[in-house]
């Protein structure tokens, strides 16, 4: 078992040292430190070089800046976001409703849950060639891809959220003579909201995977286009930059959603956020 060795620092008397130590071990410092370490390693690997096709961190940064400056990055992002937003929105609305209905009604559960359980375990990406064959390479296919990837996790999370409502809360609602609608609306749904929202966050992440896949496999547009184009002309710094941007974007979107989630549903977590 590893323990953090603090004996030497601890023996140093005086508040100066203790304050410094507290600052040094602050989580933000570590985050910065680990980023620096990773970027430095990346830089080294690029310069060494591991391979002709592996650019260094600085090269990637410069390339990214170039693409941002000439507008190609911005334009690509806009194109990529469209199927993502449409797909995730559709999945969210349809998925949450479906999950709630399955949670409340046993017959709907019997009908729907096995399908989505299979969908969650299966490599849905394999459906893409099928979709392309049936519907071509347009926006509709990409939106459908996003929906296919995002919906199972949203549906199953919403379903589980409703199912796992604490029984004593529901009993409490009954004991105070709540009607079925009141119990669903005032107790079950609010209790389920945090998990449903967590499902939406996971759905968004899956949606990102879907849109990237769609752009790499179906027809290159947006960011996927930037990636494949620069790959084909061996402009690796720009290719890496585009990839880094898409990953960064997904991280931003998902943390944004997490913040909203905490703001709306978890007052107890606000101070820790």
């Amino acid at each position, binding site marked *: 078992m590893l323990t953090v060795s603090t004996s030497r620092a601890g023996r140093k008397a005086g508040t100066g040292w203790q304050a410094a130590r507290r600052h040094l071990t602050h989580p933000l410092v570590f985050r910065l430190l680990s980023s620096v370490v990773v970027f430095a390693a990346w830089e080294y690997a690029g310069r060494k070089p591991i391979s002709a096709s592996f650019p260094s961190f600085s090269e990637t940064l410069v390339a990214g800046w170039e693409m941002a400056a000439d507008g190609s990055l911005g334009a690509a992002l806009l194109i990529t976001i469209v199927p993502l937003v449409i797909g995730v929105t559709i999945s969210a609305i349809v998925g949450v409703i479906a999950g709630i209905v399955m949670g409340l009604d046993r017959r709907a559960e019997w009908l729907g849950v096995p399908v989505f359980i299979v969908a969650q375990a299966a490599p849905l990406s394999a459906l893409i060639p099928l979709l392309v064959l049936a519907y071509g390479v347009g926006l509709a296919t990409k939106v459908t891809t996003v929906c296919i990837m995002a919906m199972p996790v949203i549906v199953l999370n919403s379903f589980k959220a409703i199912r796992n409502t604490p029984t*004593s809360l529901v009993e409490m609602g009954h*004991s105070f*003579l709540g009607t079925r609608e009141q119990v669903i609306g005032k107790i079950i749904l609010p209790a389920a909201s945090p998990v449903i929202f967590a499902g939406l966050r996971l759905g968004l992440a899956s949606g990102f995977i879907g849109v990237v896949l769609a752009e790499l496999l179906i027809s290159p547009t947006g960011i996927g286009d930037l990636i494949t184009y620069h790959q084909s002309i061996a402009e690796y710094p720009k290719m890496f930059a585009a990839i880094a941007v898409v990953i960064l974007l997904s991280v931003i979107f998902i943390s944004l959603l997490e913040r909203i989630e905490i703001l709306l549903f978890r007052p107890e977590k606000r101070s820790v956020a």
Partner: protein
Amino acid sequence: MSAAARQVAPVDPRSAGAMVSVRSVSKVYPGGVEALNDISLDFPRGQLTTLLGPSGCGKTTLLKIVAGLLPATSGEVLVEGRTVTGPGPERAFVFQDFALMPWATVLRNVAFGLELRGTPRSEREDVAAHYIAQVGLKGFESKFPHELSGGMRQRVGLARALAVKAEVLLMDEPFSAVDEQTRRKFQEDLLQLVVNEQKTFIFVTHSIEEAVYVSNRIILLSRRPSRVMRIIEPDIPRDVSPDQIRRNTAYLDTVESIWQGLKQYLD
């Protein structure tokens, strides 16, 4: 059938008949577990009756049947002469795990019973505020359950049950999830509440001391499948200070005699 027909204990001259009557209630859970076996009891109006017994003996089951939250397999429960078919406005339940809505403030939680009835907002918030003050939580109206200690949360649950102005208060081991000091304080407060509110209380606990301390009447239930073992009416002066009650000889003797009776049913 009149309330006087089947009585297990002598009629208390103070009450005008039993508030709640349990008639030959049995409960068998799906899977064959027999929780209650032909129980008949009366709960006198205006008194605090405790259901006492070892863990798992079915006292909570009986309480929930009286509350209308569980159906009896056979037998019936009458409240003020009317058969129980489900929950009703004349009975309020206080839950062992508090059952507070974590996303709602104390005020909203306490007012919840009234909210479900459709009472207009300002009216129900006034009533809620009154009972919040009465259980000693004045000033905490806009706090959330996670900001309160266990003891405070249970007081919210109690205030909620009081706010609907039910005649019968059903309490399911309400003090078991709080620490000892808080528990003692609650017991003292409960005694005061019984005197002030003039309601009928049915209280479930597995603590002998607690039962003897707060109750007008104790019903000892046996192990599952439960039947009524004994009915005891502690003869303890209640107009002395709380600490003096706990040292009163009659109190201590009653506790001891119940303990001796229950010991044979333990593992």
